[in-house]
Every structure is written in C-alpha cells, then in structure tokens.
C-alpha cells in the first residue's frame, strides 16, 4: 500500500456500525429480554402499565436513533468501498466495530447513567453503582480491544475481494 492510503473512512464506517449495533444490543438485552431498565426509567419509574408504555415509547425513540446510526454506518461503508485509496481490511472493520460498541457503552454509561441519571443498568438494585461501573468497564475493554485490532491491521492492504 502506498503512503497515500487512508484508513479513516473504513474506521469511521465501523465505528458507526459498532455504535448502532451496540445500541441495539443494549435495547434488546437490557430493555427487552432482561427488562432491567428503560431509557427514562429513573425519571419515569415503570410502576404500572401506563408508565411502562411511556418508557416503551421513549425506548422507541432511542432505537430510532441507533437505527439511524447503523444506516449511516452502512452508507459510509459503501462509500469507503468505492474509494481505491482505502485499504479493504476485515480486521480494521471488525476492530472499528468493537471500538464503536465500546464507545457506545462508555459514552452512554457516562452521560445517561452517571451525569444525567436517566436510568441505571439494574434499576431495581439496592446499590446501582456496581452494574453501572461494570457497564463502563465493558466499554473500556471493547474500546481497547477494538483499537488493538485496528493497530494490528495497520499494514493490511489486501486487494478488493481478498480482504483479511
């Protein structure tokens, strides 16, 4: 690969896909399957059917947002695929997606759990801090792991159709 190659477009696409899909994991696992919190469950406690449905509506707006992030990531990936100076590396894309998921957990956990207090990971827990910290820690681990994979792939330069 020449010195003019750019990895930014592929990394950016992966980051957006990771953020979007990480948001869906949060929604599917924590909101729907485990039902341990909703987006505004610390503000509007889901104590009866109406408040549960109000929370469900706000979850829907959140999911619409992460859906938009995922679509934006797909569009960026398509664009990156059209640019000849972008090395086509599966490891870079995977690393960026993992880092994007980590970014989601880290930023969502910091802003929504710690600063704004919109909800906590396990709303019914007597001590909400340990699950919140575990969520933040998962973000750091994913971010570091994804970044390491991106760095490891810094010399990937497979021709189109032969991505590693």
């Amino acid at each position, binding site marked *: 690969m020449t*010195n003019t190659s750019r990895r930014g477009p592929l990394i*950016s696409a992966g980051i957006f896909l990771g953020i979007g899909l990480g948001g869906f994991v949060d929604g599917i696992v924590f909101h729907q399957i485990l039902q341990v919190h909703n987006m505004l469950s610390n503000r509007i406690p889901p104590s009866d059917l109406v408040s549960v449905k109000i929370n469900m509506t706000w979850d829907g707006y959140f999911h619409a947002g992460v859906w*938009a992030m995922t679509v934006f990531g797909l569009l960026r990936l398509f664009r990156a695929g059209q640019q000849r100076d972008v090395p086509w590396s599966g490891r870079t894309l995977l690393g960026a997606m993992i880092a994007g998921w980590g970014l989601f957990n880290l930023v969502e956990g910091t802003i929504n759990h710690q600063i704004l207090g919109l909800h906590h990971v396990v709303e019914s827990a007597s001590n909400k801090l340990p699950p919140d910290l575990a969520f933040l820690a998962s973000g750091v681990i994913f971010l570091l792991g994804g970044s390491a994979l991106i760095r490891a792939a810094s010399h990937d330069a497979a021709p189109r159709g032969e991505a590693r």
Partner: protein
Amino acid sequence: MKWSAASLILSVVLFKNATAAACPQCRPRVAAGVYNQDFGTNLLVLLLTLAVLFAIGIGTYYVDALNAKSGKGKGNDT
C-alpha cells in the same frame, strides 16, 4: 444522514398519533405522558448521547490527517 434525519422525523409524525394504539384504554394517558411539555427536553437528553457519539464517529474519519499531523503516520502506510 439527510435521509436518516428525514426518516426519524417521518417516524415521529407518523407514530405520534399511534401511541399505545394496541391499548385503547390506556392510549390517552400514555400519549399525555409522552407528548407533554417535557417532550422536547426528554428527546434532547435522549439524543444527547447519540449526538456525542456521532461527533466522535465523524472525527474518526479524519484519523489519517490527525496521525499525519502528529507524525504517527510518517513512515508507515496509514
């Protein structure tokens, strides 16, 4: 992004009047609980995280320029 924003706005317009249609008894109370004076604030705080993440994602697009500026890109292929 233009299309994503447009589809989000379209969803709000379409679904605003369909809130809790599956539960006719509680529908008015749910709609009143969502689309009240706090709607804008709630939507804003909900989307704040995504706005921050969006900014970070856009920033990563320019990772090559940043690396080149800091001298990291010198001598390698990134």
